[in-house]
């Protein structure tokens, strides 16, 4: 059940610091959108406003609208907890629960929601691990701790955990930056498969990765340190990397930045 994301005029603050300013974009369902840009340009902050995770940081708040199909994530009476159940997230460093087994990690989200049948749980865990291309590697040790896996396996475990609850959108915050090239390739292949079912947004510092996995690419930039980050342009990935319409984008992707 992939959904469209429609952001209009979004500005996010940490306390009195304006982190990103006036961002508007549309993300189509069943597509991969990559966010690129220099450090501090607010792409991670923007990603975290899409599931209201930035509010976890003290003083985090936004102005503007984020629509998931027709539902405003920041509408009155919307519980951030229920937003995060619809919009899953994978983090920069693999973070399986260290005290839980592989099975329990994948089942964690379902158990939170509470609306599952005991008999279905094993099926969902198997399906999610298969969906994350991890099943064959862990099927014989589901009751072992998830922290015993390699970094790449842990990250795929985290993806399995995120997709087990069938979210509408999957956010990925530099999911490969802590991984070696082989594990990175595995995750990139996985992203290609997952976009058949989910709307995916990925933040990456690796421009080749953005070019490889995404359909659309958004370039973020900031005019100076301390200034809010802004969306420079969003376009088809092919166009961004061959013939971008803004000079700053061209400078950034060709390494002439700054």
């Amino acid at each position: 059940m992939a959904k469209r994301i429609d952001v209009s005029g979004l500005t996010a603050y940490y306390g009195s610091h304006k982190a990103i300013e006036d961002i508007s974009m549309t993300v189509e369902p069943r597509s991969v959108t990559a966010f690129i840009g220099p450090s501090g340009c607010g792409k991670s902050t923007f990603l975290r406003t899409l599931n209201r995770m930035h509010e976890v940081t003290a003083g985090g708040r936004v102005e503007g609208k984020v629509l998931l199909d027709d539902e405003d994530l920041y509408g009155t009476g919307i519980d951030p907890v229920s937003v995060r159940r619809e919009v899953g997230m994978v983090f920069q460093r693999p973070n399986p629960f260290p005290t839980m087994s592989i099975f329990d990690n994948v089942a964690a989200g379902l158990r939170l929601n509470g609306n599952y049948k005991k008999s279905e749980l094993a099926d969902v865990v198997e399906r999610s691990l298969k969906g994350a291309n991890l099943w064959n590697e862990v099927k014989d040790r589901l009751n072992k701790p998830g922290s015993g896996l390699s970094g790449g396996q842990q990250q795929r475990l985290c993806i399995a955990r995120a997709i087990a609850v069938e979210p509408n959108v999957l956010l990925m915050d530099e999911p490969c930056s802590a991984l070696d090239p082989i594990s990175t390739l595995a995750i990139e292949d996985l992203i290609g498969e997952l976009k058949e079912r989910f709307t995916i947004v990925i933040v990456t510092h690796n421009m080749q990765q953005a070019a490889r996995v995404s359909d659309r690419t958004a370039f973020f930039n900031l005019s100076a340190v301390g200034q809010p980050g802004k969306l420079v342009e969003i376009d088809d990935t092919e166009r961004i990397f061959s013939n971008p319409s803004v000079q700053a984008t061209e400078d950034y992707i060709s390494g002439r930045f700054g």
Partner: protein
Amino acid sequence: MDTTQIADAPPPTPPTPTAEQKRAARGATRPGDRIFLGLSRGSGILLLVIMAAIAGFLTYRASLAISKDEGNFLTTFEWNTGVNPPVFGIAVLAYGTIISSIIAMIIAVPIAVAIALFLTHYAPRRLSGPIAYVIDLLAAVPSIVYGLWGALVLVPYMNGLFGWLNDYLGWTGIFSWQNGAPRSMLTVGILLAIMILPIITNVSREVFRQVPQMHEEAALALGATRWEVIRMAVLPFGRSGVISASMLGLGRALGETMAVATVLSPDFLIHTSLLDPGGGTFAQNIASKFSEATEFGRDALIASGLVLFVITLLVNGAARAIIARRKEYSGANA
């Protein structure tokens, strides 16, 4: 693992290191390293020597007394060291020590964990600082002050609680009350709970504060409420730390002397009801009898101290076993 496939050929045997290389591997070739190695190794050995000396002293003096004991040292309900032949045993003391500590733990651990969670995950920053400071102050109050407060303030207040317990739970036998002064094991347990609350709270708070942000965010991103974050990420991560904290508190409760001696009115009986005054603990019994005891009486008291020593060691060993049993699931290898 990704890398297990390449380990088919046996690894080449590494050359046996020379004595020189072994020293270098320990980092003990430069003078500074050698001095530091000596100091740290010496401190470690000194600790073992002191422990062995204490155990040896207790065992020797205890054996002098126990060999002349006419009663069974473990099961006798009496403490008569001045008569000939002497009859004494630690049954009442062991019961009193353990039951008062259990009461203290049942009361203190949940409250301490709740306070620590409140301070780390619920309270606003400007509130959690002062509260933590007050709890630190509680830990610094001398135990005799707790004892005086217990005797003068807590004991009179206990009348109300004891009456209520007797009315509603008296039928259990454990909470029946014959209207004696409320200087009983329950009062001692409550006082001990207050005394060990700060240490358990402080250590638990430290542990909860060290839960990595990324584990809490993992739970939040799955749509966990604040309580569910605590249940999924914070409590499992802090589990072994809370056990250690509780053991520190239990150690203090088992050995607490002055506060117990001030509040309890002791006798040498095991009372079924926790509300009836009487009973005793190892430390309290030693403190109240030691100054007037004969040489032999002191040996007997030391023998009871040896038992307390052994109980404390067993408790610590059990705690370590609990922590080690689930080591691979602890947050340490995350």
